[in-house]
């Protein structure tokens, strides 16, 4: 989950980069930056109120030496507005925006046993046709599902597992009125 503020900052950066035709350069800067400050130590330093803001800014700009001018300006803006935390979420927020522009959605497919590439690909193709978007699936293993798959894309879920059916059946049986013996 990305905070609303971070998403707005990221959208602004994306729009600017797209207008200036520097999308690829900025995108690679952003992912580099995300890698650089992704560690626990780096993020602690970035947000540490006991270290002077100017010092932190200088340190960060040091890692951005070869970056596009837009990225550098963006980082300095974040510091001047006291929004260093936005930088931590920038990578993810920027990526989400890029995916939305490309019509790509991410999803999770849960199954009792690992699925092979062919299975995942055919699932993704089917779902893509159904949702009208390109679906990228990530496989997670959950033995309690017993069998079948459960796909979650955004806030929609398709439950085709044995466990899900059993739960469903239990619910239905609980609702059957018993007429005998009254």
């Amino acid at each position: 989950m990305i905070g609303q503020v971070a998403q707005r900052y990221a959208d602004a950066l994306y729009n600017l980069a797209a207008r200036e035709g520097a999308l690829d350069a900025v995108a690679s800067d952003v992912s580099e930056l995300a890698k650089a400050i992704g560690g626990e130590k780096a993020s602690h330093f970035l947000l540490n109120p006991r270290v002077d803001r100017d010092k932190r800014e200088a340190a960060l700009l040091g890692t951005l030496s070869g970056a596009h001018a837009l990225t550098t300006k963006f980082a300095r803006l974040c510091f001047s507005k006291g929004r260093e935390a936005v930088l931590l979420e920038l990578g993810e927020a920027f990526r989400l925006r890029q995916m939305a522009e490309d019509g790509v959605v991410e999803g999770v497919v849960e199954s009792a046993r690992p699925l092979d590439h062919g299975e995942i690909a055919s699932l993704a193709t089917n779902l893509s046709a159904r949702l009208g978007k390109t679906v990228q699936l990530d496989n997670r293993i959950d033995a309690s599902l017993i069998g079948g798959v459960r796909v979650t894309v955004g806030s929609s879920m398709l439950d085709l597992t044995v466990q899900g059916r059993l739960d469903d059946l239990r619910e239905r049986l609980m609702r059957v009125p018993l007429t005998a013996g009254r």
Partner: protein
Amino acid sequence: MDLRPAEVTSILEKEIESYGGDSNMQSVGTVLTVGDGVARVWGLGDCMMNELLEFEGGVRGVALNLEEDNVGCVLLGDAAKVKEGGTVKGTGRIISVPTGDSLLGRVVNALGDPVDGRGALAVTESDYLPIEQPAPSVVERQPVTEPMQTGIKAIDAMIPIGRGQRELIIGDRQTGKTALMIDAIINQKLTGGGDPSNPEQVLCVYVAMGQKQSTVVDVVNRLEAAGAMPYTIVVSASAMDEASMQYLGAYAGCTMAERFRDEGRHVLIMYDDLYKQALAYRQVMLLLRRPPGREAFPGDVFNLHSRLLERAAKLADNAPEINPRYKKGGGSITALPVVETQEGDVSAYIPTNVISITDGQIFLESDLFNSGVRPAVNAGISVSRVGGAAQLPAMKKIAGGLRLELAQYRSLQAFAQFGSDLDKATQQILTRGERLVEILKQGQYVPVAVEDQIMVIYAGTSGALDKLAASRVVEFEKAYLELIHDSFPEVPAEILDTKKLSDEGKAKLDDAAKRTIELLG
């Protein structure tokens, strides 16, 4: 309940055989926060307002706040089973309750689940109706024309209620509000012999919101003892239930009543009480962080009650032609909302709201109650704005005089202590008034049939009791009615038949009163 294993097996077989499972996309979300009976959920992209949600552990909830990045909902069950990060499933349907004949005689909660330990309801999927439904439109209604007899002399004579009316019952705690409603339910037995399959029978729905469980049990026991349960549904959202259940109870009860109304039946529904319901609503809305207004109630607290009470209506005879939702025209819902006041303050927020919504109000006063006038109806400030059109002509004629004489009595009551120093005309008004007040007194759980009411009130307004001591009026009433039903059974029959009291009948009643007083000595 004793179950036969063979039956269970056959049900299982049938269910498993017919079980298909669906491969439709489901809407899901994740619990962000949960506490105080409300939860915030992330996801649920296509969630509807008032949609029923399913949390883990079988707990249900209702979506009430659809916000930019989350859904605020109230929980309708044990909040301890809901955990942060848990999955929430959308059901794709608005919160609904079961309706229909199988609910009669039952005690159910705000979701329509039985709570009387007498097993599941025999309902099918199509019996479930949404709890919020639009009220009948202007063309689908007709004015109130038929009387709704409560069996209480003071009300039926001076504050008549018609079928389809909304009449507020308002008063402090311990003034007999609930007792009055129980009487009204019991009296409906006279409409169809207490047989719910008789189309003439007025069906009753009693919605208890925020009441003590002991009060609900007491009401059910009273109704059972009086044989009134077979045509009554009790919806119990008591003080121990979640605040969300307490405020939804009114709508659930109304939906159950509407089903009968739309089938051409007559229903009497009582909301006990709307003040507590507003408190429950305030709690839920504050927890959902809706902005508070006056007295911290949310801004839509007026609409909370107006949209509920608008659903009480008398349907037009041709309603089915206008809207296929109605199966038969002419049905009605009469609503008796209750509002409890604090220290007799009727100018507080909720009481003024509901007074302005309803078609009249019945004021119950502690002072009257404590001085022995029971039911403690203050006839001076109680009104019924539309019920007069539905009153029996015989009652209307007699009650006009009753109202006037009681009003004169009240204005002179302060002089009563001067006794013999007063002029004859004043004394006469005071004597008459005292006896009329006595006549309107009535015991609990003994509703009086309308023809008996007319005959008794006639005796009072005709002056037949002026020479009898006020303390003996109760005694007189009993003997008088007995004598009439023995010697002049044609008079009550005539009233019921022609709805009028002829001069001939009046003469017979005068005679009966004279003979009764002689009998009493």
